[in-house]
């Protein structure tokens, strides 16, 4: 069985989508934020790999074709953004203010907690780009001398967490304007959060997409400044 699974071309993609469907089923059935389809699918796929002793590399050999589509899919985020361009122009000041305050909050909070927990400079710069999209975050971590594999892991954890808690946080902080909800989710949880914002509504999705690009670019400039603080 193990050999067959390791050699299968389609196992990786199939099991990923199957477990995502399981996540959707559980979420519908129990209506709990914990049963986030992405979180369920990731844990379930990990479980399958461990039980059948399939190497991650063997799984990824097939599953890479899902990741392959991520770049063109990110490019496509321009479409909902274009459809909401009127809103973007109308609220440009609010959007710019929201994203900038989000980037600043991210860097300041990581600096403060890294200092409080006594993290080393290397660990601190590894965490700095955690709220932005992986491709930009990896570059920043590498440039500042962080541990890139851990940065990727932290970015993914941030995204999945942001995807899970987005609705609850918006309710708790009484963030009701769709534009503000999109900016909040995209600034905090990049593309993985944006997947959730898309479910909440077209405006949320478009604004979240915009935040991925803007927050990412602003962080490039601001992170190197912040790296000097610890």
């Amino acid at each position, binding site marked *: 069985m193990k050999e067959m699974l390791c050699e299968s071309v389609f196992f990786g993609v199939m099991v990923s989508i199957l477990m995502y469907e399981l996540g959707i089923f559980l979420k519908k059935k129990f209506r709990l934020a914990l049963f986030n389809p992405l979180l369920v699918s990731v844990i379930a796929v990990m479980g399958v790999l461990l039980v059948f002793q399939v190497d991650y590399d063997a799984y990824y050999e097939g599953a890479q074709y899902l990741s392959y589509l991520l770049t063109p899919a990110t490019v496509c985020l321009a479409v909902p*953004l274009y459809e909401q361009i009127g809103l973007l122009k109308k609220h440009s000041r609010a959007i710019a203010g929201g994203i900038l305050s989000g980037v600043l909050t991210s860097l300041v909070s990581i600096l403060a907690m890294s200092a409080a927990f006594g993290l080393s400079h290397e660990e601190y710069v590894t965490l700095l780009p955690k709220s932005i999209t992986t491709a930009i975050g990896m570059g920043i971590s590498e440039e500042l001398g962080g541990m890139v594999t851990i940065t990727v892991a932290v970015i993914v954890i941030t995204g999945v967490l942001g995807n899970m808690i*987005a609705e609850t946080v918006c309710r708790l902080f009484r963030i009701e304007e769709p534009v503000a909800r999109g900016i909040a989710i995209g600034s905090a949880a990049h593309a993985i959060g944006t997947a959730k914002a898309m479910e909440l509504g077209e405006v949320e999705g478009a604004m979240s997409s915009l935040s991925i690009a803007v927050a990412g670019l602003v962080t490039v400039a601001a992170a190197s400044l912040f790296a000097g603080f610890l």
Partner: protein
Amino acid sequence: MKYVRQFLIILLVTFLGEICRYLLPLPVPASIYGLLLLLAGLLTGVVKLEQVKDVSRFLIEIMPLMFIPASVGLLESWGALSGIFAKVLVITAVSTVLVMGVSGLVTQWIIRAERRKGK
């Protein structure tokens, strides 16, 4: 044929993004260049909405699936992460909630302030 043409246009823009990534010495990924290029194309009318709409919708809908392989990859980086995992998790959770709250509230506050001023 409609879908083939749409997919081609999207891949063309993605490829242009890769060229920008190759030529420009900035830490910006091809996907972000591509997003900005496609937006510019749509705004200037070089690309029509109908020429990319259906395939875009499909790719965006299945986007969450594309994060599964990298997330399962946490299995691989567990060795490097396990030592500082508790601290990392606390920092990540607190900072993610703060960023979401602050950026959302600031945006909402400015929108509502402008709306009041407009009336």
